[in-house]
């Protein structure tokens, strides 16, 4: 029974994280909506954390409206080869960070990323992508 429970938990986790990501990718296609959220959140200068599909999509959705200094990724690279997106490694980010807002995009590892970033980024400056796209601002 325990094994079945574990299996159900694992399947549900995979399914829900994938479907959340899919929903967020779709929501970011609505530029007007994203701009309204930027206004509501009062965001201007910022970084995006996470060089995966969500981070890249978010960059394209908001970089014309606000100043995105770069996409931060632990690996220092993006998942896709996109030369016009500035990328910053986590190590470098810790050196250059100066109080900007950060939107965290990875769905699966949000909690650990949040903990890691909050060592040098004030918690009030950290926001999860889901919160930006549909949470209470």
């Amino acid at each position, binding site marked *: 029974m325990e094994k079945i*429970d574990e299996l159900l938990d694992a399947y549900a986790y995979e399914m829900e994280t994938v479907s959340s990501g899919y929903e967020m990718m779709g929501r970011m296609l609505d530029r007007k909506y994203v701009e309204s959220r930027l206004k509501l959140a009062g965001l201007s200068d910022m970084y995006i954390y996470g060089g995966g599909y969500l981070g890249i999509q978010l960059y394209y959705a908001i970089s014309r409206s606000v100043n995105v200094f770069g996409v931060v990724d632990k690996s220092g690279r993006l998942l896709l080869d996109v030369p016009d997106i500035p990328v910053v490694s986590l190590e470098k980010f810790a050196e250059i960070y100066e109080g900007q807002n950060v939107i965290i995009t990875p769905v699966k590892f949000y909690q650990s990323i949040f903990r890691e970033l909050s060592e040098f980024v004030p918690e009030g400056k950290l926001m999860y992508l*889901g919160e930006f796209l549909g949470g*209470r601002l």
Partner: protein
Amino acid sequence: MLLYVTYCDFGNIGFWGIKKKVLAQVNAFRKMFGRVYYTYFAWQMAYLMDGEQIIEKRAAVTRKEYNQILCLWAEKYGIGKTYIRYPFADKWFLEILAFQKMRRIKTVVEIPTYPYDKEYPYGRIKVEDAYYREKIKEYVDLMVTYSADREIWGIKCVSLFNGIDIGENKIAVKRRQEKELVMIAVSSMAFWNGYERLIEGMRIYYSRTVSVPVRLKLVGKGPEENYYRMLSEKYKLMKYIEFCGELKGEELDEAYDQSDIAISSLGAYKKGVYAGCPLKGGEYCARGLPMVSGVNDIRFSDNAAFVLKVPNNAEPIDIYGIISFYEKVSSDSDFKEQIRQYAEKYLSWESIMQPIAEYLK
């Protein structure tokens, strides 16, 4: 302290009506128990609220995480009782119920609509719910329903009806005038609202002798909106039907102020529901508006003069019948005040929730 648990996304316009109801119930509980927090779940974020103030927020990517956070908050804030708006049952919902039972947290689960199986298409959620809901009786002793059922899934039920927060709903100011009749329908434009029946009725009306111009304000947004627009355009009724979009606060007050008669649910038959108490019926009553209802609204007796009951099926609505009904009900100069007084006397959440408060004490 009482925690009102929801799994709703109150940022989504489809949940605004539900949010109004939850806040009204929270206010009623507050008068009985003092501090009451409520929760909601929006875009992978869990929110713990006190009125409009966020007490805490945490990322919760999965249902499991949301339920874990609820357990954490229950411990952190010394929650002694909970009132849960039923989500679809799943493995993690049972885990929070088990957690509460273990900690002797008294709980009541409210089922907003019952039966509800026809409300949603087949899918994973339905399958999970059908399996796990049969196990709820191991953890819950009392449920609230808005149907006439005394027992659901082997659990004793208390039947309530949907009330209204009187203070949040001003009486509509428009007085009777002969030159037009304005209907208002406020909804999340779901299939069970059935407003195509009204549009069909208007088509028939305008194809015959028109005694008085009849207009319709459709307030809200939702999955059926495009269908209603298509029908309105097809029948060349666009100058009589106004799609107002979602309205709140003063904008909603203004829409009500311009209206003579309100339209409740006309499509409840589509989900196999023939009696109930749709939220909008209480709101219309508080606004002092006579109303048309397809579902048998159990808050209003058969001889309630301000409710016109129409058949709960797919037939077009008889607009001439609505006009006659309105003429009759509005012949009394203070008809609006009388309708509102009914709401004040019978539909306040404080009186409705009293039996639940007694159980939770």
